[in-house]
Each structure stands twice: as C-alpha cells, then as structure tokens.
C-alpha cells in the first residue's frame, strides 16, 4: 500500500481512481481495491494468453499485439506465471459456494472496481509491459445479467474506445443471457465457464446456487457460436470472430471425494463435447475465512501436477482416460509420472525399437516427448540411431532406458526385473513438520 503521505504525489492513475471513487459508497483507494480484488482472483488457475488471432498496432492507432504464443511477464513465488491482470470486477457475491473466498457467507473485505478503473489499470500495466492483457472475472452482484453486462462493458470499452489489441479473457457467468455471452465473445479472445467440481453431485453439494446443466448448456452455447462464426453467410461474408482463443474451464481438485479416474473422465467428456482448449485443475487451497462445511487441507499440488500430465497424455499422446487409470485404485501414482506408470504396467508392449516403431508407439515410450518423436522420425530416414543420438534429440534416457532397444543398447532383463518400478521411485525425503 502507498503510505498516505505519498498519495499526494501519486500519479494521475491513482488520483483519477480516487476522484471517481468519492462518488461511491466505500472509500477504498484504487490500490486497496486492487489488493482486495486480485487477492480474490488468485484461485483461478488459467493464465494462458496464447492461441488467439494475430494482431498488432503497427498502424499507430491502438495499443497492443498478440502473436500466437503467450508471454509470462512475471512469476510469483507460487511458481505461477503472471501473464494477465487477473482481477475480479467485484468480490461482492450473492452465491454461497463453500470452496470460494467470496461466497456471500464469508466475512472477507469487499470492494468493487468501476468500469473506468479496470480499463485504466489494464492499459497502464500493459504500456509498461507488465502484462499481456486482462483476465476479468467477477462475483455475482444483483443478478447474473447485470454482472455480465458490466463485464462486457469493460471489454467493449477497451476494444472500441481505447483500441486495445492485447488479450482479453472473460470469465462468463453461465446464468447470463445468451446475448451477453454473444457480446462477450465478440470482444474477448477467450471465454471460460468453470465447471467448478468434478461431478454434478459435488457442484450441487458445494455450490447450491449453481446448476451443472446450466453450466454445460452455456459451454455448448459457446461451442455453437464459435462454429457459427466460422461459416460464411450466403453473401460470402464472414461473421465477426467469436472468442478466437476458444473456451476453457476449471475444476477444483481435492475438495470433494472424486478420484482421478472420475476427474479425467469428466475432462474427456468436456474436451469431446465442447471443443475446450484447456481444462484447468486447481488444487483446493486454503482460503481466508473458510467455511466449516469444507475443512481446509494442504493443497494437493502433486496430484494437480499429475492430473495435468495425464491431461497432456490424453490430448497429445493418444492415451485415453481409462488406460491411464486402469490397474490403479482410480488415483494416479503420485511418485512417478502417469506415462511411466502406464509403461510399467504394460511392459509387454516394450522394448520399442525407435528405428521401426510408428509415431503412436514412440509417443508411448517414457522419456520421449512429442518433439523428440518428431526428431527421431526425421533423423532415422538418414541413418541408424544410437543412444547418444537420442540423448541429443532431447529424450530423457533415464526414463527411456528399460523401454527401448537400439543398435548399441538392449534393456535385456532390466525390463522384466521386479524392482524396476522401485528404481524410478523418488528417494525418501524427510517429511516437513508442517
């Protein structure tokens, strides 16, 4: 916080915010509001700013660019990328979701940004190269429509009045009217709707005001609009693009009793049904002023990590959810990655000869990434590959060792040795007292 004596010499940004706020009921400074409303936004995992249409401001009339890949402008000590100004428009909320710090029954401090404040903050941060754009979410005030309307106004002002060409992600409110979601998609690069929990039953239990079928229908609506925006009309005109960076969603891991098989099954369904770009998994993390309904735990960060790895296997490595969790108790092994775990359970499929195996098979070798596989396929046309070649191509040979046979390497009995799994287990570690 800026000490009060410094406020007199505060920059125009701060001064303007203050003047504006004199008209409102609370007297938080812009800085205090930013503190409250970013604190409230930190539980959203998404930070992506990639994959949208390419834009720039070379014409000198606007500000900003997007060039395909996103940029993480900073990292906080939680290891998370800070790419967007991720804030809530307000943390007042009429809903009472047990896992959420902003639920109506919590005594957390409340604040609300004006449209102009969010616009100004976004632009001033952007100009100084702190961020790629804005990720705006909100508690629900008055009604879903009223809230969504204000959020759309912010995006619209950024785009149309300020000519902002950076990235905008709007968290849409599933209960809001279709017209508002339509508008959101016109100004935002990405829209997202959180499924919140891995099962309908958990949503009903922990977020009583949210309806799982309304959430699904809203996601279906986004997919349909996106598809409709791709079709040319009979005059050959292309309709305006709708959320070019697609839609994503998030579910909280570890708050309810769902196992990993259930979670991955839900993701599979979401990916296939609504063309989602990403499903984010958010380890349930302690919140200030928690409810007695949902006792706080240490956030299951390793579990979250393994779920992301499994998610990757499903999207890029040709695995399906059932394979990943088959032969387990329904939960992923926390000590080794899910691909290695799968290979250890399916040793009959190995060793694989990188000179002969097809792409699908190579992708299943532990230690081989997508790019390594691509390199193997390109290089083996010209010559035989050896151990060192694979290492240079980026393969993790420590993991691949038992699962490949090469000109100068065969795993022999290693592949079938009973202690193979133990070799990969991490070294025992002193437990933390806390």
């Amino acid at each position, binding site marked *: 916080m800026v000490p009060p004596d410094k406020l007199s010499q505060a920059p125009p940004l701060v001064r303007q915010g203050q003047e504006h706020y004199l008209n409102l009921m609370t007297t938080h400074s812009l800085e205090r509001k930013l503190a409250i409303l970013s604190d409230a936004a930190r539980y959203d995992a998404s930070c992506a700013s990639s994959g949208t249409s390419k834009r720039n*401001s070379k014409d*000198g009339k606007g500000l900003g660019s997007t060039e395909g890949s996103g940029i993480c402008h900073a990292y906080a000590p939680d290891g998370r990328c800070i790419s967007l100004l991720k804030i809530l428009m307000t943390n007042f909320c*009429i809903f009472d979701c047990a896992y959420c710090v902003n639920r109506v029954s919590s005594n957390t401090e409340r604040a609300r940004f004006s449209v102009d404040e969010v616009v100004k903050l976004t632009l001033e*941060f952007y100009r100084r190269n702190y961020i790629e754009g804005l990720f705006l979410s909100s508690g629900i005030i008055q009604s879903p429509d009223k809230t969504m309307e204000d959020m759309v106004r912010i995006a619209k002002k950024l785009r149309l009045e300020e000519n902002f060409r950076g990235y905008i992600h709007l968290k849409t409110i599933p209960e809001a009217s279709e017209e508002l979601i339509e508008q959101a998609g016109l100004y935002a690069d990405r829209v997202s709707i959180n499924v919140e929990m891995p099962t309908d039953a958990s949503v009903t239990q922990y977020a009583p005001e949210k309806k799982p079928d309304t959430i699904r229908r809203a996601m279906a609506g986004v997919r349909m609009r996106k598809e409709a925006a791709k079709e040319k009309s009979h005059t050959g005109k292309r309709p305006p693009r709708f959320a070019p960076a697609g839609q994503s969603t998030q579910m909280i891991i570890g708050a309810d009793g769902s196992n990993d098989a259930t979670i991955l099954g839900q993701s599979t369904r979401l990916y*296939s*049904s609504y063309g989602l770009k990403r499903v984010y998994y958010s380890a349930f993390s302690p919140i200030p002023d928690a409810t007695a309904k949902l006792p706080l735990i240490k956030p299951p960060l390793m579990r979250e990590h393994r779920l992301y790895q499994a998610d990757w296997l499903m999207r890029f490595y040709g695995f399906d959810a059932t394979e990943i969790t088959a032969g387990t108790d329904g939960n992923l092994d926390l000590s080794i990655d899910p691909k290695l775990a799968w290979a250890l359970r399916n040793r009959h499929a190995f060793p694989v000869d990188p000179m002969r195996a097809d792409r699908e098979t190579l992708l299943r070798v532990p230690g081989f990434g997508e790019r390594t596989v691509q390199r193997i396929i390109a290089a083996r046309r010209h010559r035989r590959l050896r151990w060192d070649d694979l290492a240079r191509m980026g393969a993790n040979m420590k993991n691949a060792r038992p699962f490949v046979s090469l000109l100068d390497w065969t795993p022999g009995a290693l592949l079938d040795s009973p202690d193979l799994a133990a070799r990969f287990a991490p070294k025992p570690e002193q437990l933390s007292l806390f």
Partner: protein
Amino acid sequence: MPHVALPHIGTDTAWRDAARGLVSRGVPPSEVTWSRGAAEADLFATPPEEIAPASKTISVPRSFVELANTVIWHSDPERFARLYALLWRLGSEKGLMEDRGDADLAKLRAMEKAVRRDRHKMTAFVRFREIGAPDQPRRRFAAWFEPTHHTLEPTAPFFARRFADMDWMIATPDLTAVFEDGALGFAEGQPKPEIPDDATEELWGTYFRNIFNPARLKVGAMMSEMPKKYWKNLPEARHIPEMIASAESRARAMQEAAPTLPPLRAAKITERLAAPRVLRPMADDLDQLKAEENACTRCPLYENATQAVPGEGPRDADLMVVGEQPGDQEDLAGRPFVGPAGQMFDRIAREAGIERDRAFVTNAVKHFKFTPKGKRRIHQNPNTSEIKACRFWVKSEIELIRPKLILSMGGTAAESLTGSRKGILSRRGSIEATEGGVPVFLTVHPSYLLRLPDPALREDETEKFRADLKSAQAHLEELRAQ
C-alpha cells in the same frame, strides 16, 4: 587468412553476405576467422567488403537460414565460425539439417535455444517507466535491460508492433533501441541511464503481492522461469523475499482460523435465491413435460449429455415424427432434428409433401449417447433398457399431442413404439400400432442414408425413403379425412 569483422548493428545480414562470398570462393572454415566489431589487430584481416560477392547463388535449406538468423545473436564468439562450418558441410551432406543427433548441429541448436529463450525473456521482462507527461498525445517511456545475448536488435520489432502508439527507448549495455513517431532505430550501447521512478510500479507491486497464493509456495518453479539475474531490473522482484518468508505462516493462519459467523445479509440473499421447486406428479402441459424430461435420471445417459432434448412442434400436430436419439448438434442446441440427419429429413419430407412445420418431431431416447474420442463424440446406439426407460417420455408426449399418425424412423424408434426392432427393412412402409392404439408408420432412419458410402446406392435408398414418406403423408391424409 581472411578475417571478417562484422558490424555491431546488422550483424546478421553482414554475416550472411560474407559467408555467401566465402563459400562461393571455396574458402574452407579452417581458413577464416570472425569477430563482431574490430578484433585485435590482425595483419592479415580482410575487410568484409573486399570479400567477393557470391558469384553463384548458394542454395541452403530454409531451416539453416532460420538457425543462422537466431544463432548469430548468441554471445559465444565462436558462433560465426560454427555456423560457417555447418554451412560448409551442408554443401556435401544431404539431410544434415534433419539430423538432430549430429554433434555440430546439436551444439548450434542448443545455442539457438538459448537465444530464443533470451529473446523471449526480453519480451517478458522489459519494464517501461514513463518519462514524459501522461497527457501528451504520444506518451514516452524508457527501459533499461540486460540481456544475456545480443538480443535487442532482433527483438525490438516485437516492441514496435506492440507499443506503436507511444515513443519508447530500450537501453542495454550493448545496444540502444529507440522508437519515435513510428520509426525504429538503433544506437550504440550505453551505461545504465537514470530513469525516473514511475508510481505505477507501486500498483504493480501490489498486484504481484496479492495474486500470489501463500499456500502454494513453489520457489523452484519461479526461479527456473525467472532467474535471479533478471531481478535487479524487475520492480516487483523486491517483494519476493518477504513474500517467501511470510508464506508458511500466512497459510497456517488460514488453516487455523476458526470459521466465522456469516454476515447478516447472507441468510436473506441465500433464502431469496433458493427458488421454490414444486414437483407436480403428472405432466399436464408441454413446457412442464420438457422441464421434467430435463430433470430425468431414469437411466445413466443424463450423466454425459449436455441436456435432454424434448420433442418440438405445434400442440395440435396430427403427425408425430419419432427419430432415434439426439446427436452432437441436437445435444448442444437442445432441439431435435437440427443436425445433419435432421436437415436431410427436413429436405426429403418437404419433397414428399409433408408439412414439416405442422409435425411434432421427437426422439425415442432424449439424451445423447456417445463415446468421447479426442475432440469428437462418436454416436452410440441406445440399448434396450435405455429405450425402455425413455419410453415413459415418448408415451407422455403421445398422450399430450394425440397425433393421428406416428412416423417411426429407424430401429430404436420402432422398438420404443412397437416393442420390436427386428426386421426393420422388411417392415418398412407398413403400419403397426402403439400399445395405446395410435397407428405407427415404419421406415428407416435418415442417418442410415448418410452412412451409405456408395453414391448410387445412396441415391436409390434416398428414393425409397422419399417414397415411404409420401406414402405416410397419403396415409395421414386418409386419416384426416375420416
């Protein structure tokens, strides 16, 4: 022995020109030395302009050009020689660029990666401070940055594309980029200039501290992406030590805090939102029926579908059309017959003289059954128990609409309406009846036509289907006349 001294600005094109000239003169890599800027006096040095321009065009793979354009900015003094050596080898070794196992190439690829990363980190970690008055038409900003490699020149255009409506300067020890009135220029490097404080950095620090979740401390992950060498020019970095130090106690405090009593307004709001739900025992109206279908959990299909897809059409329709189940599009839209098979039915029905708008269309099963496959959903046939569970809704719709004739399309509809799906091809065109005695005209499902691969056969079958629909329409008209 030729020595090539490359300029500080435009090093990339200068190297390319020199390398081209050297290759075309047949100068092997062992006989040339390189430097950026004038090297220590070399009596035998040849200024680049005296190297003969390429007498013949040299063709190299595009991937080499891309590699060279990046590696050239690396800080390793050997980079020019390494690139030239690879270029030399390319003349005789085909496929070299695709061989990631080659040691020379692997080294250059590693350098390329380092430069890419350095460029990326520059786009991420440059921090502008405002140096002009904020109310000027073109605002002015400046930044000081210390890259690991010579990456300002190739990266400056990124900032020009992004910050085109303001003037800015990025100073590095090696080079300075200046963007004024839309024009980008470069000047020699300079010692760190005095750039005045910018108060927005306070706000940015506030954001940085508050977006951090103290319960998820992962310092290693932060350090690998934002190494300490960058911290001195990042205004937010000064908060990091305190954030790490207090994280554990903050997280513990959250866990130990006793739950509080909700504020008074909470109960009122929650009460207002908990809308009263009256469950009526029997559907007495179409909207009510739709709502009930949507809440249906009689079989497990509701778990995966987006929504139930109820029948649709005029209340007084005398023709009811029953298909199999909603498909992908119907499931998304919540409306029957909007997907490819539905559109095909609409077209052929119109050709057969059926007044499509006056028909009530619905499905034997109300939820979409599918198996997920990547980004698509593969249609699955509903099984007998699912059809049976859903028959309740079909019956309710029949009772409500009271059609004179039901057009049953496909095996699933036949099973639902008549109790049997056997021999549908031999039963098509005939009229059976529901349990309740409503006449049922049987035909195939239009998706059957869509699946036929042979165009001639498809044409044939489409004709038969059209004939079925005509005959159904004729029958309907007879029934109307009665």
